[in-house]
């Protein structure tokens, strides 16, 4: 490949960007080459996000930019057997699990391809069998520069997973993303495309875990396409280790009368930047976005939601609960855009942060950009410590201070936990969550 080589300014590129370019130059051309060229060209022109990028101001990438990355190894099924402890759901549960290792789906043996109502294939296969379809899924939702890592993924993803939900699928599908490497400074670019056909229903859980000596830098991207009347519950759960860096770009396109319930849950990782870019393209589309962001020890969590109402009578509701202890930092920026013509659009943003230590920090910023009349848009953001009135009430009933505080921390997260409708997933997420809160033993006894 040579397209990117012509782009000027190569000398000023950071080692990281140069290493991404080297990966790009080593890729075999495929059916979507023009799209990839465009994406890579843009990444090289823009460079990695820096201090001058408003949406990255709290998340400096200087250290990362100074490193060089090579492709994380594709792993064979024989070499990789994820330990049971990494599973979000118990083995006995009725779920279908698809394993992806460093972005490579292990399809032939790992999955029963007859999951009722779905069709599953690798993106490599899709690129050969229906390049036009793949191209349509990769079209950008917007011009936003925040999605630079999404562009990088588009240029560099080697393989990925395509799930088409064709009808009502009662069994939750778990995509277990395993990050693993036997050397430092590797990178993976996992990509997942999920299409819910008209009227289809499904729950899909993407669970990011790690195993082995080193964790690759993970630059994942997921695209959700909801056709008319489809209903999709999508979870992305980040549960990597403190050494790891994860960039995840999620975009969602919703057609008429579709309903998406999206959960973003950060329980692990050293640095996690998770973006959600949403487009309600037709009337009646409905989004419920729930975020549960847990800052623990030195963790840095940066979430950006951009929700766009582009049609009349669309609705979105965002509920974000951030909690930060130790020296962690949690950032949540949410923006709702109502296009001209999107009359009767309704949006709600409820962002709340709970600080559990004097050295932790939370920043929440809800934004609204309205270009239509007759809309109902509400937003609220609050960050603070435990509510003194609630605490006193519990103490006045004889509960000791530690129990009272623990109860209130748990209650703070309750709204998002209660919205999770897969009981086993909820229970597994709660278990993992509890270990990162004060008084885990006490919390366990409360469940």
């Amino acid at each position, binding site marked *: 490949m040579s397209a990117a080589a012509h782009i000027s300014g190569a000398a000023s590129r950071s080692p990281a960007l140069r290493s991404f370019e080297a990966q790009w130059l080593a890729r075999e051309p495929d059916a979507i080459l023009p799209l990839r060229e465009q994406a890579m060209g843009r990444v090289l022109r823009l460079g990695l996000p820096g201090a001058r990028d408003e949406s990255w101001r709290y998340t400096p990438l200087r250290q990362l930019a100074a490193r060089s990355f090579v492709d994380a190894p594709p792993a064979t099924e024989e070499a990789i057997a994820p330990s049971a402890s990494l599973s979000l759901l118990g083995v006995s549960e009725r779920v279908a699990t698809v394993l992806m290792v460093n972005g490579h789906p292990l399809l032939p043996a790992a999955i029963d391809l007859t999951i009722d109502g779905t069709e599953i294939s690798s993106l490599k296969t899709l690129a050969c069998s229906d390049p036009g379809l793949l191209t349509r899924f990769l079209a950008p939702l917007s011009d936003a520069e925040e999605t630079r890592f999404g562009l990088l993924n588009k240029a560099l993803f080697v393989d990925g997973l395509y799930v088409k939900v064709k009808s009502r699928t009662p069994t939750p599908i778990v995509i277990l993303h395993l990050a693993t490497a036997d050397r430092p400074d590797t990178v993976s670019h996992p990509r997942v495309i999920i299409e819910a056909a008209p009227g289809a229903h499904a729950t899909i859980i993407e669970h990011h875990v790690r195993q082995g000596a080193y964790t690759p830098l993970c630059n994942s991207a997921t695209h959700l396409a909801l056709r008319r009347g489809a209903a999709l519950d999508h979870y992305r759960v980040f549960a990597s280790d403190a050494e790891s860096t994860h960039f995840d770009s999620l975009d969602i396109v919703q057609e008429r009368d579709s309903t998406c319930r999206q959960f973003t849950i950060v329980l692990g990782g050293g640095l996690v930047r998770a973006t959600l870019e949403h487009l309600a393209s037709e009337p009646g589309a409905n989004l419920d976005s729930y975020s549960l962001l847990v800052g623990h020890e030195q963790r840095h969590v940066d979430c950006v939601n951009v929700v766009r109402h582009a049609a009349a009578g669309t609705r979105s509701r965002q509920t974000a609960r951030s909690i930060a202890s130790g020296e962690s930092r949690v950032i949540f920026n949410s923006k709702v855009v109502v296009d001209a013509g999107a009359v009767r659009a309704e949006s709600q943003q409820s962002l709340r942060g709970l600080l559990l230590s004097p050295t932790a920090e939370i920043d929440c910023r809800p934004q609204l950009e309205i270009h239509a009349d007759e809309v109902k848009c509400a937003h609220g953001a609050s960050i603070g410590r435990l509510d*003194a009135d609630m605490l006193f009430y*519990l*103490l*006045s009933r*004889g509960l*000791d201070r530690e129990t009272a505080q623990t*109860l*209130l921390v748990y209650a703070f997260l309750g709204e998002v936990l209660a919205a999770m409708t897969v009981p086993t997933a909820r229970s597994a997420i709660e278990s993992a969550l509890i270990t990162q809160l004060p008084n885990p033993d006490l919390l366990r006894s409360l469940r």
Partner: protein
Amino acid sequence: MQLLKIDHLSARVAGKQILDGIDLEVGPGEVHAIMGPNGSGKSTLAQVLAGRADYEVTGGSVTFLGRDLLGMAPEERARAGLFLGFQYPVEIPGVNNVYLLKAALNAKRKAAGEPEVDAYEFLGLVRQKMKLMQISESFLTRGVNEGFSGGEKKRNEILQMLVLEPTLAILDETASGIDIDALKIVSERVNSLKDARRSVVLVTHYQRLLNYIVPDRVHVLSRGRILKSGDASLALELERRGYDWVVGEKVA
């Protein structure tokens, strides 16, 4: 021995002196009513007795069952048998009503060296008290006071009181914001709690509640001091003549 002995208690909130030398003694089995105009310090007195941290005690002492009450943490006061029925009970979504009741009862039992309550028996007890208070079944699954009307919140306070069986119940404006039927239910329960050992302090702006719970003593509080004390007939006189009469008499 007096159950509660307040000696020249003074307190301030956010730098403002609210209580200015309160003297009050409550004996076992007695019902006292503390009345007074808005802003006289009634609620502050209740909160100070329960141990609210942002109310600063600037002088005086309080003895409860022979112990120095002011030296006890709020949770210790509760376990020792003091109960505050809040004027504005806070909503705590995510903390279940029944869970709180059970945790509260167990904390008290533990402090008394008693074993934890049996979960099954406990639920039976709660259901029985709920029936007495005419509280609907959905209460069991809801968060503390979550989405409750003003009257429901007050009934929940009394339900908690019935489960915890305090030695001293301080009920802050329990009758305000409830309808006549609820008032009768609440009064009946408060009367049922009272025995030779247990006492009740009613903090109330209106005389209405005192038609149903007849106090042994009535005290009129104004500007952080008790201006006048008397028997139940004082409440009726206040109803007839208003607070200005007492305040005026004192000034004169």
